């Protein structure tokens, strides 16, 4: 009995010793010399490996930053200014502060505004449905509502509202990594400035069809009338292919465009509720959004 114990202890111990020696030499031979800064930077990064920076993961981003030697075009959208300042500190560089961003869904084609004309019966994938046809509402630009953006989000910051059938971004959770932007086959989601007090004004439509055609499928489509362009005092709105677009760098959040929009395609988010004040023109309706 004792023999068995002794033999097994001796053999196991010797295997351990031999393996340790081999491991030591292998580790010596294949040692990779890395800049210690990479590890330091990786530590300050959020570690979500979301790919929002354009690299496969946080480690790759750290390597790229160290290799590049400057911070031009390199930015961790998740960590934001705080993280970038830390990285700049490690590398002894300056960093430009930039405004925080948030993902914005530019479609108001809810079940009510854009009633469905077909039944879709297939896998819940926007990319698949996009290849198949124009979508249940008939709008070839609008949201398909099958949730590719939800699948893409690693931060649980977007969900499909069952009532409207449209995705909703949870502002407090969104880190503006841009995963949903690339996942959306119709380019509906855009990263915009979060804005002062989270207030934003944007055109919630990407339909480039002519006004009458677009209106057939959706009550709140942008019809390209150009009223908002005229109303804007800051040249922030451009009209292209029957579609208005508000440049978030120029927009001063005055909300004049919201007032004039005849279809309610322009949304203002997080503004205090307006007093039910004078509606300027009788046939224009202003959309009340809280």
């Amino acid at each position, binding site marked *: 009995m004792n023999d068995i114990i002794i033999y097994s202890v001796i053999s196991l111990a010797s295997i351990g010793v031999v393996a340790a020696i081999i491991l030591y030499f292998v580790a010596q031979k294949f040692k990779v010399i890395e800049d210690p800064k990479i590890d330091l930077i990786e530590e300050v990064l959020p570690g979500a490996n979301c790919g929002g920076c354009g690299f496969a993961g946080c480690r790759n981003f750290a390597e790229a930053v160290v290799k590049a030697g400057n911070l031009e075009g390199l930015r961790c959208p998740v960590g934001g200014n705080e993280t970038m300042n830390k990285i700049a500190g490690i590398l002894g560089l300056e960093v430009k502060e930039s405004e925080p961003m948030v993902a914005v869904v530019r479609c108001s084609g809810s079940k009510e505004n854009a009633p469905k*004309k077909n039944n879709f*019966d297939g896998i819940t*994938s926007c*990319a*698949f449905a996009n*290849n198949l*046809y*124009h979508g249940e509402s008939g709008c070839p630009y609008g949201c398909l509502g099958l949730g590719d953006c939800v699948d893409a989000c690693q931060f649980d910051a977007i969900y499909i509202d069952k009532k409207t059938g449209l995705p909703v971004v949870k502002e407090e959770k969104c880190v503006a990594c841009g995963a949903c932007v690339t996942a959306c086959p119709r380019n509906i989601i855009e990263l915009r400035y979060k804005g002062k007090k989270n207030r934003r004004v944007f055109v919630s439509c990407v339909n480039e*069809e002519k006004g009458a055609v677009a209106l057939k499928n959706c009550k709140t489509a942008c019809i390209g009338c150009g009223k908002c362009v005229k109303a804007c005092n800051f040249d922030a709105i451009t009209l292209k292919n029957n579609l208005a677009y508000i440049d978030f760098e120029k927009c001063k959040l005055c909300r004049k465009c919201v007032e004039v929009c005849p279809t309610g395609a322009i949304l203002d988010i997080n503004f205090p509720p307006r007093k039910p004040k004078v509606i300027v023109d009788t046939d224009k309706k202003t959309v009340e959004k809280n």
Partner: protein
Amino acid sequence: MRTFKKGGVHPNENKISQTKSIEILPIPQKVYIPITQHLGAPSTLVVKKGDSIKTGQLIAKSESFICANNHSSVSGKISKIDNFIDASGYKKPCIVVDVEGDEWIDSIDKSLEIKKDITLSSGEIIQKIKEMGIVGLGGACFPTHVKLMLPEGKKADYLIINGVECEPYLTSDHRMMLEKGEEILIGTSILMKALNVDNAIIGIENNKKDAINHLTELSKNYKGIKIESLKVKYPQGGEKQLIKALTNREVPSGKLPLDVGCVVDNVGTAFAVYEAVQKNKPLFERVVTVTGKSVKEPKNLMVRMGTPVNYLIEKAGGLPEDTGKIISGGPMMGKALTSLDVPVVKGTSGILLMKKSESKRNKEQNCIRCGKCVVACPMGLEPYLLAALSEHKNYEELEKHHIMDCIECGSCQFTCPSFRPLLDNLRLGKNKVGQIIRKRRKK
């Protein structure tokens, strides 16, 4: 009896309309002719709003290599050029013509007499086919003249004419072979001359015995044309499967039929080639089967391109109450239509109306790993694995497992006892991998 070896399924044939002879559909008052009706680069419009056009007049010109001409199917006045939904599910530019009478352009030979002598040379035939806008009528609409222009150093041994019609329900090719047999054989001879091949095989599935007998009888007068009867199996009408069944040659992955010395054309195309070369008639009408279990009078109709689908359905006894889905093409590979206003195009081989009860998919269940999809796949792929990889967005692995070889025949999904949407996932994955490959090539 010959057939392809690997995979395949056997759906219920449901060839309800196979005894109905081809009827000519009257021209509707308004037609919507899509400007591009083929696979490849879009053609360029050569008419404008307000123009008066005649039947057979060129309306859109081919300006790149893989592209085809397009002709007016009616005579009348162009009232509008705008976007309308077509079978692709998206709006595409169409010309809308208010029909006035039916005046054909003068160059078309309207006589009913069959012209047998082939006077043109090979190059002239190809030129003619190009001019007349002939595309493959099997469904893919690949421009025929491109197939006929063999690249330097390549030679075809066989011309294969596809009379398989393996899709359930559809009978348009079957009726063509019965009623236009002589023309199809002349068309085949023309194609043989254009390709400079001595052998042509017409493959027909065994469920169309009358067509096999009829063509075998007629083909005695034509040199080099052989009629081959094939065992009924889907997807025998697929190019690669048909070549395998008839010549036992396998088209390698990513290669074309020409790489194994074969050119495949549909019987409908052979007929269109006959009309184009012998009668100078551009491709502006085709046979469309209107069928379905609840359709009152299933029919095979000779239809002008651009005729809205509801006009066809009207003629087949009207839209049944319980229609849940309308399919352009057959039930295995056809496209579901979003509305009844979609116009008939060169690739529309049938309009299939499905009952509400048929049009809903069963609820998907767990994969029980039965391997039926693997056995059914005619390309030797593993659909269960590819579908799972596609769901997990693992595009690298997908490419390694040859997803690009998938011919989207639907055999896997057809046979799956768990009702899994295999082909949906495969299509999605194939699409993504295709994008990745294209991006890589650009670099």
